């Protein structure tokens, strides 16, 4: 696995399988995904829409919409450390999704920011109400007044002007960027060990996006928390993460440090992704789109999932059996027969 083992382990996801049981068939949204998250480090997850990156994050929070979704296999081990550094290890998948233990992890241990700042906040409650609610849920004995003070302070920290006034604002009175700042404040108010950003800047203007990314990076450093950053935007993921995981149709295709994966992409899918975006310093090349479209989400493919779109496929090999995920260079995992 990637060389970030200097920091203590925070979350260990092993062979996670999350399926959606729909009327039309079963969608294997996440199918055998494993990775680690270390304290204070950041992991970027990249892939097209529908590749299972959001569902992976939702599984870690146990907020996969159920029914139809269910975590059917694997484990998600969380290392809950107290002040002295002693760790209690909990398998999140074994906890009842709505139980008190799981709820104490959500919001307190893991904070999450979502894609749509427009719809992520309740329109009927002030942002202050919705942020301080987080404190009141997780910290016993905190008065409403204290919670409000802390909320105002946090709003200031995420760069909301005049927080004393805007704490009483309703979401529709704020711009998209301001709302996303409020969302960040909500996710961070209880000082989580991990912040998951599920495409938090996708819906924002480019200039606002840059501000929010800077803010998240700064806060991550200040608070010393881990970050799991999900996006379909390579440039953003590259900027945000220490290591990158490339996902395709519910599986990890490639996983390595950011530098390694940018300098030396191995999997044809990763290579194709790299080719399909313009680079600033790169030569004037034609952008190459990835041919074909995603296979049906219901299909059960016997071989490599990328087979139908791969430009280096080996018929008879790649469509016969699924390739394993293999460490071909130390700290660099690839799921492809070309590197076996």
């Amino acid at each position: 696995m990637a060389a970030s083992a200097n920091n203590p382990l925070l979350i260990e996801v092993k062979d996670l399988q999350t399926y959606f049981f729909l009327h039309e068939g079963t969608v294997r949204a996440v199918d055998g995904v494993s990775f680690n998250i270390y304290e204070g480090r950041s992991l970027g997850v990249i892939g097209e829409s529908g590749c299972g990156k959001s569902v992976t994050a939702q599984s870690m929070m146990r907020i996969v919409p159920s029914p139809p979704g269910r975590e059917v296999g694997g484990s998600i081990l969380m290392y809950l450390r107290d002040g002295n550094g002693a760790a209690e290890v909990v398998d999140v998948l074994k906890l009842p999704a709505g139980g008190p233990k799981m709820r104490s992890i959500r919001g307190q241990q893991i904070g999450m920011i979502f894609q749509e700042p427009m719809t992520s906040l309740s329109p009927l409650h002030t942002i202050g109400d919705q942020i301080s609610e987080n404190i009141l849920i997780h910290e016993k004995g905190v008065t409403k007044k204290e919670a409000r003070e802390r909320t105002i302070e946090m709003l200031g920290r995420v760069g909301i002007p005049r927080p004393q006034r805007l704490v009483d604002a309703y979401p529709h009175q704020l711009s998209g960027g301001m709302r996303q700042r409020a969302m960040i404040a909500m996710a961070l108010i209880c000082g989580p060990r991990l912040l998951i950003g599920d495409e938090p800047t996708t819906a924002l203007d480019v200039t606002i996006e840059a501000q929010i990314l800077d803010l998240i990076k700064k806060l991550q450093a200040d608070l010393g928390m881990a970050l799991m950053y999900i996006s379909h935007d390579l440039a953003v993921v590259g900027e945000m993460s220490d290591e990158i995981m490339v996902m395709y149709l519910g599986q990890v295709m490639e996983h390595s440090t950011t530098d390694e994966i940018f300098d030396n992409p191995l999997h044809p899918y990763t290579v194709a992704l790299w080719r399909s975006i313009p680079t600033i310093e790169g030569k004037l090349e034609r952008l190459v789109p990835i041919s074909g479209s995603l296979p049906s989400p219901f299909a059960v493919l016997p071989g490599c999932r990328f087979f139908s779109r791969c430009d280096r496929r080996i018929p008879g090999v790649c469509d016969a059996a699924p390739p394993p995920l293999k460490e071909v260079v130390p700290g660099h995992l690839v799921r492809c027969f070309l590197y076996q």
Partner: protein
Amino acid sequence: MLLYIIRRLLMLIPILILMSMVAFFLIELPPGDYVSFRIQQLKMSGVEVSEDEAQRLMIQFGLDKPLPLRYWQWVSGIVLRGNWGWSLQWNKSVNEILSERIPMTMVISFSALIFSWMIAVPIGIYSATHKYSIGDYLFTFLGFIGVATPGFLLALIMAWLLFTQLGFSALGLFSKEYLDAPWSWAKFVDLLKHLWLPLILVGLSNTAGTIRVVRNNLLDELNKQYVITARAKGLSEWKLLFKYPVRMAINPLLSTVSWVLPGLVSSTVLIDIVLSLQTVGPVLLRATLAQDMYLAGSIVLILSALTVIGALIGDILLVLVDPRIRFGRLAK
């Protein structure tokens, strides 16, 4: 906010004027005028009316004046002196007849509305959170039947069942011994005993309709992102449900008041007639059967006006509970 309310209040004025015109039109509608009708009535009861007397009556009721003036007299009588006119049939002022019955009718209509919400909202929440369960199917089916079943016919059947099976006479609002008794706790309890059936029957179709609205709204809301956000905070499911999506799902009920209320008042009138409750319904029926148009017209006007005001209250409450509308208006 305040501006909005003031604007809505101002908009009320032309509607009320129009309603008074409709009511006056109804009063003037039957062939033959008021006085000749009265003279005929007096004659039938054996009282001879002289020519002078007839003339005096004509002037008293202003029938010698043109229509617009008569309308003005009638309306100004109501607005300035609170005088709703005279009922031929009862030989009493309309005010006296209606003073107790109108409030009772409106109480029944409004309580039926609240009552139907109290039943429908929990069922709607249950149905939405237990989508496609047996209970959901059962309530959906019952709701369907409830929407289609006419309350007044059900009232007939219920009254018959209660009477033959339990010996309970559902007719009237009070048992005989309390009819003319002054208000007391016992009388109030007796009233409640008689009130539940009309409340259920009047609210029936609204209950069924509200279940559908709440269920569909809540199903929409449950899939919204803000619910997932709240869940990701670690809020327990019950608290989450009632703080966020349920509030979003039931707020729109307030906006339905304006079109549900007229129907409720109508069915109150009808069901009160069937169950002969001491409300405005049976009075209106007697007035119309006897062509006592001042009474009938006044009742139509009062019920319409109160309905419009009720709807206005609903709209104002909606503005109060929904910050999007509240601040949206302010910004403009």
